[in-house]
């Protein structure tokens, strides 16, 4: 492993004096896939915005490799309906030549939509368009915010498979937010569970050997493919403070049960 593409050291982001991202450290290199999971309001999107450099960091340091090109796939392409836009025009706005844009669209499987209006695309097609858009820039690091949102179950699996293939093709790093843990587990090198602070992190192989985790994981897959329940040995009160279930304030020993 050469120098990391991106490295976060004790990064804290505050909104109105309240930490939304609390002393998070992580490192991503070429070939890594890091998946950030966590409940709503856990600071997942804020964290990746800090990585992208569009969110001010109050403490800690975000270091990017020199000349790093980031391909960003935002949560959803919410387009203003008053703005007429074709897929071709949207791709060309990346500033890349048409043949690069077309190649990227072919890679993500939506080249046939080249002359379609972006307003007529389905959720899955929009995500693939955004992915193509990120791809056209030949990124060293792909950052995806819930890439499978609005995509049906079959489409989700295919999309994560595609992201893994792209990592291999481009030899890039991948950082993504996802709720689809069962799909993520198959594709991910490392999972970070965030709830303001890093609750737990590790490689799927290590985590999934934990019988308690298999229990959780199996139960959830059987229950519903879409919903993910994640159990901790601690809870959070409304302020996001750690409340131990055994009563010891601030306990967070990062085990699953």
């Amino acid at each position, binding site marked *: 492993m050469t120098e990391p593409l991106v490295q976060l050291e004790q990064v804290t982001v505050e909104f109105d004096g309240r930490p939304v991202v609390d002393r998070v450290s992580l490192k991503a290199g070429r070939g890594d896939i890091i998946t950030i999971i966590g409940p709503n309001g856990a600071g997942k999107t804020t964290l990746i915005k800090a990585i992208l450099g569009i969110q001010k960091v109050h403490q800690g340091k975000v270091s990017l490799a020199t000349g790093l090109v980031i391909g*960003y796939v935002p949560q959803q392409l919410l387009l*203003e309906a008053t*703005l*007429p836009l074709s897929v071709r025009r949207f791709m060309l706005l990346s500033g890349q030549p048409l043949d690069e844009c077309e190649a990227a669209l072919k890679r993500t499987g939506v080249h046939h939509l080249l002359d379609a*209006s972006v*307003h007529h695309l389905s959720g899955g097609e929009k995500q693939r368009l955004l992915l193509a858009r990120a791809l056209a820039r030949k990124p060293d690091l792909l950052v995806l915010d819930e890439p499978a949102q609005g995509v049906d179950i079959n489409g989700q699996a295919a999309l994560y498979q595609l992201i893994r293939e792209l990592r291999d093709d481009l030899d890039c790093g991948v950082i993504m937010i996802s709720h689809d843990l069962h799909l993520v587990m198959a594709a991910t090198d490392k999972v970070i569970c965030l709830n303001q602070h890093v609750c737990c992190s590790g490689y799927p192989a290590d985590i999934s050997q934990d019988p308690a985790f298999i229990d959780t994981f199996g139960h959830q897959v059987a229950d519903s493919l879409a919903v993910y329940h994640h159990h901790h040995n601690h809870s959070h009160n409304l302020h996001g403070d750690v409340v131990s279930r055994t009563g010891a304030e601030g306990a967070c020993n990062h085990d699953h049960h």
Partner: protein
Amino acid sequence: MTIIDAVLGDFFWRALIGGLGVALVAGPLGCFVVWRRMAYFGDTLAHSALLGIALSFLISVPLNLAVIITCVVIALALVMLSRTRVLATDTLLGILAHSALAIGLVTLSFMPNVRVDLTGLLFGDLLAMNQQDLLWIYGGAAFVLTLLAVLWRGLLMSTIHEELARVEGIPVERLRLALMLMFSLVIAVAMKIVGVLLITALLVIPAATARRLARNPEHMVGLAIIFGFVAVTGGLTLSWHLDTPAGPSVVVTAFLSFLLVYSLARKPA
């Protein structure tokens, strides 16, 4: 007397040429107003133009310059205030739009030795257009169109998806400022023709009409300019023959073409 002198010497032709110049820049900027949902923002800037007029009499600065500077200052204040999130942006706009208009009117009333044609300022005046105004309009139009052409990709990208644009290294904030400067300029030059109360209509209606027929952003801009031309030509002709106020006549024509296009054309891409 040459033909050019004859044309520029006639107030109707002066107004028409000036109006077409305004429509030329109102087209593309109107598209941005529609795309970025800035109609109310445009109204606020236009209303603050009256404050600029009052100030120009108060400290004897050229009228157009005072209006541009006032609009820019109000625009910057709006951007900064909306960042503090003390009030919702539309509430903030509601406060500033009407306060600026009211302060402008009150200030003007304190200057009894200054005779201002208030109706002309509020609703536009065909007769008010002089050759110097034409110079301002076409100078301003050339400046705005050049700036738009240079900044086009960045402006469009930050309109489509601000965060994506930021990640791709587009200077979103600076482009926002450039856009405000352009709005201020257009308001300053369009004021004489349609009046401060109706400028937003000249920005929004042709662009909204164009949306129905357009397939891509540039196409929409071109069509908005054409609909602007139609509105100005039709409106001023109406005003000339029936002695109706210039600004409202232009807006009525724009509205009629909007109705016509929306009742005839299919739903767009």
